[in-house]
């Protein structure tokens, strides 16, 4: 398969800090490539170099084998969606049309392309609304549409679904895979979301401290035993303990303080597992369900991320759970509230 963009010995420093250190990487045509890594590992810097926004301190960038020297021109080849939703203070239409105008499309072509892009993210009819007045998820979808309208060969996404509610996450994920499938767009995406890295992508790179620690298929990186991944700082709900196979298909993991987690795994001995914050259901009363893990705990911390709220719950061990702001308000939760945490044995993943 052809290489679309290649980074060769890229180094990027900001004064004293080295953000990227000797990164060499080839992105293949038409693939979805994910970069995972903790905050500050250099993911955003790497994308900004591929977007030709930032200039590397040293090293070279090749696009279809051609060395890029004029970043002003190269910028039209790729486009990036930032982690922090950034919008022009104008209408949705004008936001999406911005890049098309720069490319000199006629009014009619622009209208068609804007409409097409908005339909991809399910925002047709929002053209005249002020972009900044939309909800967080809708705003991020406008940013995505604005990038999609340009139909560039390379699309760079910096944590496109961070801090969004599940409905918007699924619309964005759907759009990403559809664009890749139908328009053959090559996509490089930075994410914290292991599930996305696993389900959406062809290859994954693990970036640690500005260096590529590992590169491979999602299965190789996420399923295989990996010391690097275990040190993945932002991974929440990581528990280590002794696992015992109790029945066919499931194991009980006894975590250090006696907490018992049931997992749909066939593994005995010492293991490290994690549960994604969004996979845990929070309820005020105990629920009867098929889920195998139920814990009672107290909320010890609440962090607001706009549409979603992250709760830290002490249930013998600290769990981080993610719920929508609406649920949070309707359930009248706060620090100190007693809650039950419920999650399925199949939501427990092995590291």
């Amino acid at each position: 398969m052809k290489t679309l963009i290649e980074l060769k010995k890229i180094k990027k420093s900001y004064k004293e800090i080295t953000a990227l250190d000797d990164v060499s990487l080839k992105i293949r045509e038409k693939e979805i490539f994910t970069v995972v890594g903790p905050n500050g590992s250099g993911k955003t810097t790497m994308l900004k170099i591929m977007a030709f926004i930032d200039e590397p301190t040293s090293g070279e960038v090749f696009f279809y084998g051609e060395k890029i020297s004029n970043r002003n021109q190269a910028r039209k080849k790729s486009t990036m969606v930032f982690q922090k939703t950034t919008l022009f203070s104008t209408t949705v239409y004008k936001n999406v049309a911005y890049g098309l105008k720069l490319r000199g499309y006629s009014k009619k072509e622009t209208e068609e392309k804007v409409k097409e892009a908005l339909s991809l993210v399910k925002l047709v009819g929002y053209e005249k609304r002020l972009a900044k007045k939309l909800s967080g998820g809708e705003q991020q979808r406008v940013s995505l549409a604005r990038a999609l309208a340009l139909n560039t060969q390379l699309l760079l996404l910096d944590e496109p679904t961070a801090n969004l509610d599940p409905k918007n996450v699924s619309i964005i994920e759907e759009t990403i895979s559809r664009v890749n499938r139908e328009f053959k767009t090559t996509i490089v995406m930075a994410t914290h979301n292991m599930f996305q890295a696993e389900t959406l992508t062809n290859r994954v790179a693990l970036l640690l401290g500005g260096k590529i620690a590992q590169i491979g298929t999602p299965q190789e990186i996420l399923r295989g035993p990996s010391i690097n991944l275990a040190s993945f700082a932002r991974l929440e709900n990581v528990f280590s303990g002794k696992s015992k196979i109790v029945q066919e298909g499931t194991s009980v993991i006894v975590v250090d303080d006696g907490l018992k987690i049931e997992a749909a795994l066939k593994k005995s001995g010492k293991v490290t597992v994690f549960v994604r914050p969004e996979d845990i259901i929070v309820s005020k009363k105990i629920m009867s369900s098929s889920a195998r893990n139920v814990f009672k705990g107290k909320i010890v911390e609440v962090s607001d991320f706009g549409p979603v709220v992250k709760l830290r719950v002490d249930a013998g061990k600290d769990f981080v759970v993610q719920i929508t702001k609406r649920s949070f308000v309707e359930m009248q939760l706060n620090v100190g509230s007693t809650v039950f945490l419920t999650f399925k044995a199949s939501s427990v993943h092995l590291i």
Partner: protein
Amino acid sequence: MWEILQNPIFQITIRSLHISGTATLLSTLWSLPLGILIGMKSFPGKQFAKGIFNALLGMPTVALGLILYLLFSRTGALGFLHLFPSPQAIIIGQAILVTPIIVSLTTSAVESVDPEIADLAKTLGASELEASLAVLRESIGGVVLAIIASFNRAIAELGVALAVGGNIRGFTQVLTTTIALEVNRGKIEYSIHLMIILLAIVFTITLLTNLLQRRIK
């Protein structure tokens, strides 16, 4: 119609608008680029430059008026220009007076724009120049406000107009100088008329700006 045109109140009003409007536009020529430059670029001494313009915001108009009088009067360093007294001298004086307002407000408007906007424009295909224009467009509300505030300051000031204009009937009389001197002469009613006009101008312009700002978005 002819009567209205000949009416001194009308003439004074028009002169005021003309002098302060020209002064504001003139000042915009240098203050706006300067404000944008200070806001967008990082350079050594940037904080110092901002500090200077902020300090000059409070310049008393009488002090500036006196300095200009000393420069423009027949024996002054710029006496050869024969600008004292004249509407042109008032225009120059007011243009200088509002420079720190336009520079400071423009700088802070540009600085308040989301720093990612420039990168956003670039990733959508903009050149460095086009990216700067995108940042400017985001700060347009603040820039318009800077210009309007300057005009209001210019039309409402007294010190400069009196010092280098001299309130000469039919030549350099503007609203503020006329009010000041007519009050002294006991013509209260006449002064109140002029005051109402002055207030009406200032309020109308502010109101129109607010409406305009809502429209451009």
